């Protein structure tokens, strides 16, 4: 018989205001095996823990139940406390009487009754808990960063500076990401390329960083400290070692039709291309879908002109397999598609553009060489209308329910830059709210209004109507004046909602990292562990976790790097001891368990078994505890009931069921 101690936490008034904690203590003492029970205002505090320590010593406890908040919050705290005081940490169970009880019930009697039942279930379970010992696994001292935008670059640089090797996998031909497409950055208006390019160069030249561009993660297996990742290096058709980046191939390439992705499809590029002049690596790729040689076998002009002999039409995709201790997701974002927003005439009129397209138009390397002009007729716009929240803050099925966070600031930036460079161009911004929390952000927006004369109108736009004279009639509303506004504009810019990169769901699935309904990766804790995924060893950097601007992205990238460094600094990791285990007397080696194991953790060996005095060789399932993640699929599949899960055994769960249904 176990000697069990029950500790009931008040959590200040969080629990005690709804649950009669004294009553729970009183009822606990009636339970079989409970030799000690007490309540305390904050069990997780130093003082609270010392009460537990004292009881372990004085009452020789060999089982502990803490009735408190969710085990997701403090199970680790109390386990550590037990361990420090000589008790196996797996002899601690938590009864969640806060999130699952006091916070959701109002009636004291009802909540107390439920708390007692939850306490009983935990006591019943702890009677059957076995002391478990965590195994150890080695840590591969190398990190993978998926995505080579500013988030991925910053994370990689910080990890590399700490002395660990980092690989960046980027699906585009160059690193740089969205930030490389931006013209200027708020709130200081410094040029995006001027601050990004040095970081790209630093990453490329860092001895601890390997960059795989034009590459994608294909397969991930393993677990924290020991991931095995297959990376597909897509055929570039250009030998990276030989290419000098002279650019003659791009100049001579006769296939000039493909839309230039880097310029958001606003102009065209050649079939062999580098996305932008400062690309890293400065080695082009051939777009196989557009290359005449690859499609028809004729042409070969780039090869003829390449003095370095770098063109290689025979190149094929290559798979690299590499071990990593940690993986950082930095897959970034894209703007949403606007095909469901016909009322704004995007797609109907060339002069209705997204803000990211405007970035390219404003950029000296963009489709208009930095001149602000209408894409329909090349004329300079005299009247520009910005529409905020296009697809953001929508609870219908057209847009996104969240605020995209960056639009208010970049619109103020665009408006200000236009007014500065083209003072005779009028700018009107239709907004719902102007959201500018951030250092020097609101001041920035006010400057746009007060110093640059940008006309902010509180109200939305219902329709943008392209007129037969080529202008755009904007049907808006001014809610403060209670007037409908008809504004004739030459150009309309839509602050389009952002969404996680479309690849993120695929990547999250490979990593078994959870993802929310908007495809943002979920953090392990929304406040306290914002850069970690709930999946151990997977970290989050940048917009893949939620909308953010550049300073926030860089800050989060650094935070993710610190977490990675903390992990890679360890030589050994403790593994989860709650793994499956087969009872050799019951196992008949049928192999069904291996069939359902997602980790390939189960193998079979023939071993001599002593079954009630009869010795015979039997085929027995063996679980590799380093690979087993403890899901329990095998335990239910096992037809003979031989397989069980330590820490969540059949008997333990049934004991809980019995206690609840008692």
């Amino acid at each position, binding site marked *: 018989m176990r000697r069990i101690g029950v500790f009931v936490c008040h959590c200040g008034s969080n629990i005690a205001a709804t649950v009669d904690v004294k009553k729970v203590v009183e009822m606990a003492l009636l339970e079989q095996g409970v030799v000690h029970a007490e309540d305390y205002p904050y069990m997780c505090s130093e003082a609270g823990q010392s009460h537990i320590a004292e009881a372990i010593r004085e009452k020789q406890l060999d089982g502990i139940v803490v009735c408190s908040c969710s085990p997701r919050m403090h199970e680790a705290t109390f386990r550590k406390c037990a361990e420090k005081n000589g008790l196996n940490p797996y002899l601690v169970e938590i009864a969640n009487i806060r999130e699952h009880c006091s916070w959701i019930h109002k009636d004291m009697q009802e909540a107390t009754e439920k708390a007692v039942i939850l306490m009983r279930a935990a006591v019943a379970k702890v009677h059957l808990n076995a002391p478990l010992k965590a195994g150890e696994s080695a840590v591969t001292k190398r990190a993978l960063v998926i995505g080579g935008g500013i988030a991925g670059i910053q994370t990689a640089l910080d990890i590399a500076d700490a002395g660990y090797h980092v690989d960046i996998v980027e699906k585009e031909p160059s690193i740089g990401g969205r930030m490389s497409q931006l013209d200027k950055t708020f709130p200081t208006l410094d040029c995006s390329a001027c601050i990004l390019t040095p970081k790209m160069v630093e990453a490329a030249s860092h001895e601890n960083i390997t960059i795989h561009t034009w590459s994608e993660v294909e397969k991930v297996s393993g677990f924290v400290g020991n991931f095995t990742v297959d990376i597909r290096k897509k055929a570039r058709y250009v030998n990276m070692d030989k290419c000098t980046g002279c650019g003659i191939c791009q100049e001579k390439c006769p296939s000039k039709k493909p839309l230039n992705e880097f310029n958001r499809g606003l102009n065209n590029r050649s079939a062999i291309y580098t996305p932008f002049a400062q690309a890293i690596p400065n080695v082009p790729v051939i777009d196989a879908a557009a290359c005449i040689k690859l499609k028809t076998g004729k042409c070969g002009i780039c090869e003829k002109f390449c003095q370095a002999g770098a063109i290689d039409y025979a190149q094929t995709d290559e798979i690299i397999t590499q071990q990593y201790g940690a993986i950082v997701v930095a897959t970034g974002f894209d703007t949403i598609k606007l095909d*469901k*927003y*016909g*009322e704004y*005439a995007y*797609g*109907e009129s060339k002069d209705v553009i997204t803000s990211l397209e405007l970035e390219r138009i404003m950029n000296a390397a963009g489709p208009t060489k930095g001149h602000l002009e209408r894409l329909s007729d090349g004329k300079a716009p005299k009247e520009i209308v910005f529409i905020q929240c296009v697809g953001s803050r929508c609870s219908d099925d057209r847009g996104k329910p969240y605020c995209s966070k960056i639009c208010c600031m970049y619109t103020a930036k665009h408006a200000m830059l236009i007014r500065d460079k083209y003072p005779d161009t009028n700018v009107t911004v239709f907004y719902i709210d102007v959201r500018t929390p951030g250092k020097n952000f609101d001041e920035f927006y006010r400057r746009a209004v007060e110093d640059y004369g940008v006309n902010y109108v509180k109200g939305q736009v219902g*329709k943008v*109507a*392209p*007129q*037969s*004279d080529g202008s755009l*009639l904007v049907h808006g509303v001014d809610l403060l004046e209670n007037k409908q506004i008809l504004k004739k504009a030459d150009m309309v810019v839509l602050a389009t909602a952002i969404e996680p990169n479309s690849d993120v769901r695929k990547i999250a699935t490979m990593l078994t990292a959870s993802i929310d309904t908007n495809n943002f990766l979920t953090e392990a804790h929304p406040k306290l562990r914002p850069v970690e995924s709930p999946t151990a060893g997977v970290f989050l950097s940048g917009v893949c976790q939620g909308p953010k601007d550049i300073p926030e992205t860089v800050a989060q990238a650094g935070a993710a790097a610190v977490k990675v460094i903390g992990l890679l600094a360890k030589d050994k990791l403790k593994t989860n001891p709650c793994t499956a285990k087969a009872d050799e007397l019951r196992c008949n080696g049928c192999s069904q368990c291996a069939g359902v194991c997602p980790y390939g953790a189960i193998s079979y060996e023939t071993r001599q078994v002593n079954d009630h005095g009869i010795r015979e060789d039997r085929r027995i399932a063996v679980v590799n505890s380093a690979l087993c993640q403890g899901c329990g699929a095998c335990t239910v599949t096992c037809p003979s009931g031989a397989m069980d899960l330590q820490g969540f055994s059949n008997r333990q769960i049934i004991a809980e069921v019995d206690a609840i249904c008692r």
Partner: protein
Amino acid sequence: MKYSYFPGCTLRNKAKDLDDYARACAEKLGFFLEELTDWQCCGGVYPLGADEIASKLPSVRALNAAKENGQDLVAVCSACYHVLKRVNDDMANVADIQTRANNYMALPEPYMGETKVLHYLEVLRDVVGFENLKKQVVNPLTGRKIGAYYGCLLLRPSSVMAFDDPENPTILEDFIRALGAEPVIYPYRNECCGGYISIKEKEQAAALCQRITESAAGFQADCLVTACPLCKYNLSNNSELPVVYFTELLAEALGIKEVQE
């Protein structure tokens, strides 16, 4: 292919052209419209109130009759189509309306929104096919520039009507193209003509219609095409631009009606 057909009140007299040509063209294109016996007026407007039942019953009767015929229900008039489709959606999805309407109706078998409601244009697009229609055209309307006027009722609310993109529809343009004419895209083709308000507020209806027709004319349309008698009435009253029913154009192209110049 046979369909139950709900002509609606206006098609019985003021909009006889819409009706006659619809039937004649259907036969030519190989589908048949069997008029429901004893149909009643749909009411012209869909009753928005969540507690309105009685005003939805005529539509439920029509829908149920089509169900008993084992046929999809086709309408030509935008308003009839709108009302029938929305009432049908209520009958399929709103428990309260299902129960109360069925209590009134006391049918042998309760009606639960089983009938599929189609607009004539949907039959052309999804069953006949515009490519196929194009092949059957004998008098292509070559050289004519036609602006499609959708109005409100075919498109909105798109969550129920699911007829076409509510802001950037294409079905009428594809139809116009199939007949050999050139569609004119103009921005107010899905904006309101004033609807029922024109009975009293002539000026408001005039202003709304002028915005529509002037915009279409600005984009060089030489006529407008619509599926709704009320839209046609309002637009014709307030503009020099000719307004025709889509079935008239169809009849011209198929050689059923004399070509109008």
